[in-house]
């Protein structure tokens, strides 16, 4: 936010301040949009390569030369050019809106993610909370898609999303609470900064909340599980189970609208990975003290995110999927009680060992 007055005073003093604000906002949004698209493209390609190599095959190999790195671009182009079909019985307005809402929710979450100490579109005071809130919009979008398609399988997908989202929002917020208690702030940048040094002033990896106390470690695992469920990834991909619901809420979508859902899925995956990184794994802090960190901060951050994205893919290509009642049981009987336990446990730990 300090950037805008600076820009205004130094270069664009002739223009009214509001125009500069709008201009900066638009350019920022454009850059973010490009970034989201890039993340999706790379992640889709990576997913295909990761899955291929896990399944003893090569995956895309021709388009673009090196390991088919242009494959996703080609697929994206194909999706752009494909016929856009709106089913005759579909609810047209909602049908058109749904992918926009889903992608919009995923995209808005990027605004609060800091890629480095100063590298953030909007340094919100309540960044964690904001990102959680944006996933609610995604959920409503998915329900909308499931409803509007006028397909019973899609409707099932929508209803599963509603149930799953409603349930897993609670543990994912609960398991973030210990971190917020430690950091004393909801600002993502502040949370990362508070991980520079840990107990006894040890820096680097010991500063990460992941290793601060056993409750936080448990919290991290539970948070990771619920983030998988919130982003609809295997083993929790129930809203789009291809073997049960054909393709769930996006069964009827084609072409560019389908591409939006697809991009949103990978965008969400990145957001979940980024939250794990920022809150539990020290964000852009390397494994050693910040004084001897050689890689640029965004690179460290992205490396950690990639590790999490890889883990997500690894799980997807290894595990079968849960059943809806098992999914609910896991959430309500396991993750939520553990979340409450972690909050109390972390508070006690802070009080006893760290004298906060």
């Amino acid at each position, binding site marked *: 936010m300090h950037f805008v007055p600076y820009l205004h005073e130094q270069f664009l003093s002739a223009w009214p301040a509001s125009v500069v604000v709008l201009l900066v906002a638009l350019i920022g949004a454009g850059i973010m949009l490009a970034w989201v698209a890039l993340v999706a493209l790379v992640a889709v390609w990576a997913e295909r390569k990761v899955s291929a190599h896990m399944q003893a095959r090569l995956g895309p190999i021709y388009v673009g030369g090196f390991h088919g790195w242009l494959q996703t671009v080609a697929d994206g182009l194909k999706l752009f050019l494909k016929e856009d079909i709106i089913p005759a019985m579909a609810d047209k307005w909602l049908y058109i809106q749904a992918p926009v809402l889903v992608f919009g929710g995923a995209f808005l979450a990027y605004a609060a993610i800091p890629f480095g100490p100063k590298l953030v579109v909007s340094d919100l005071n309540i960044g964690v909370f904001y990102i959680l809130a944006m996933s609610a919009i995604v959920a409503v979008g998915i329900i909308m898609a499931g409803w509007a398609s006028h397909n019973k399988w899609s409707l099932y997908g929508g209803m599963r999303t509603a149930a799953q989202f409603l349930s897993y929002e609670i543990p994912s917020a609960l398991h973030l609470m210990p971190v917020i208690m430690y950091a004393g702030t909801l600002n993502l940048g502040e949370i990362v900064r508070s991980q520079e040094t840990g107990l006894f002033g040890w820096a680097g990896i010991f500063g990460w909340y992941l290793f601060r106390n056993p409750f936080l470690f448990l919290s991290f695992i539970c948070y990771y599980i619920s983030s998988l469920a919130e982003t609809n990834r295997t083993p929790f991909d129930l809203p789009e189970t291809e073997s049960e619901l*054909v393709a769930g809420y996006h069964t009827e979508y084609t072409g560019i609208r389908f591409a939006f859902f697809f991009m949103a899925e990978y965008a969400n995956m990145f957001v979940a990975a980024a939250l794990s990184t920022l809150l539990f794994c020290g964000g852009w802090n390397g494994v050693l003290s910040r004084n001897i960190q050689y890689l640029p901060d965004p690179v460290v951050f992205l490396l950690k995110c990639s590790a999490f994205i890889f883990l997500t893919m690894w799980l997807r290509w290894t595990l079968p*999927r849960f059943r809806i009642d*098992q999914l609910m049981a896991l959430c309500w009987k396991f993750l939520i009680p553990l979340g409450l336990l972690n909050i109390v446990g972390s508070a006690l730990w802070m009080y006893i060992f760290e004298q906060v």
Partner: protein
Amino acid sequence: MTGVGEEAMDVDLKSLGFRVEERRTLASGSDELLINMGPQHPSTHGVLRLLLRTDGEEIQEAVPFMGYLHRCAEKIGENVPYDTYTPYTDRLDYLSSMNNNWAWAMTVEKLAGIEVPQRAEYIRVIVAELNRIASHLVMVGTYGLDLGAFTPFLLTFREREEILDILEEISGGRLCYGYIRIGGVTDDITPTFATKCRAFLRQYVSKLDAINELLSYNRIFIRRTANVGPLSAEKAIACGCTGPILRASGVDWDLRRDEPYSIYDKFDWNVCVGKGEKGQLGDTWDRYMVRVREMYECVKICEQALEGIPEGPFRAKVPRNFKPPAGECYFRAENPRGELAFYVVSDGSKRPVRVKVRGPSFCNLSVVQELSRNMLVSDFVAVVGSFDLVMGEVDR
């Protein structure tokens, strides 16, 4: 705009084949949903259509509809000579063509009293068991796919490719072989066949162990399959279920041991029976696991058969203008999916009067409606997958 569930009220459920007629008033005051699962649904493995009556996620009843792949296999049988019918049997259960060819060949051999040379018998056993492995691999892979595990699918298909390569080498086909003919086999095995087979079988067991580790004993997989859709032994027998489905319900019955046709009595192997280790007897995990365990046994049989191939002719002398004596004959063989039986009536002419194909999948599928009661959609997918239906055989 009409609600998605409204049309359920207007149809005559009885005329669609639903057994439970009384419509339950649901707790939420809403209607049941009638949903078509298939004929193009991803997990009905072909063109099976199931009409589901659901209350939310819970299925009240599911009615199967078949016939989308009906190709008049029996009518064709009445119009072509006996040996020409072999390629049509390929297309019954297209995942186990060798076994189908073999069952047809044995039926006609029984009808005409043809004695098959020993070498041919050994070759037949080897290719049929290889084909059985290939067929079970498809089941194991696609079953993982049904439950959301993608990787085992490709691993099993990779192994299956190896088998197809071997079978291609001797028969020229990769799916429909037409290799086992009346009186023997089409061609002798190639010189490299035995070594290739041995090489494959040697590495195959470890691959199977890996698939077990990845899928069969995965905790999520067990929780998805154990205690789901248990089929009692009595019901299985009464409904005419055969093969792995029957064995999974705890019935120790395998034609290869209990009615040893061909040379199966010469081999040392075990019949795999479901024991209900992870849940109830005859649940989907048992049905799945019986097949996995059978593959180990197939390897044993193959290895023994490869050791014992005698020299000699690979085909008995069958006249070109083959006319079996008048009569009728029923013969069944243990196929990967159960007992495939042919009923042939001959009037002494070139063509049979009647060919009846008793496909195992057809009888196995008839239990599905019973099993579907009060089951989650996800569980139903698991149950249908565990039956390993091949619609080519159901619809004929």
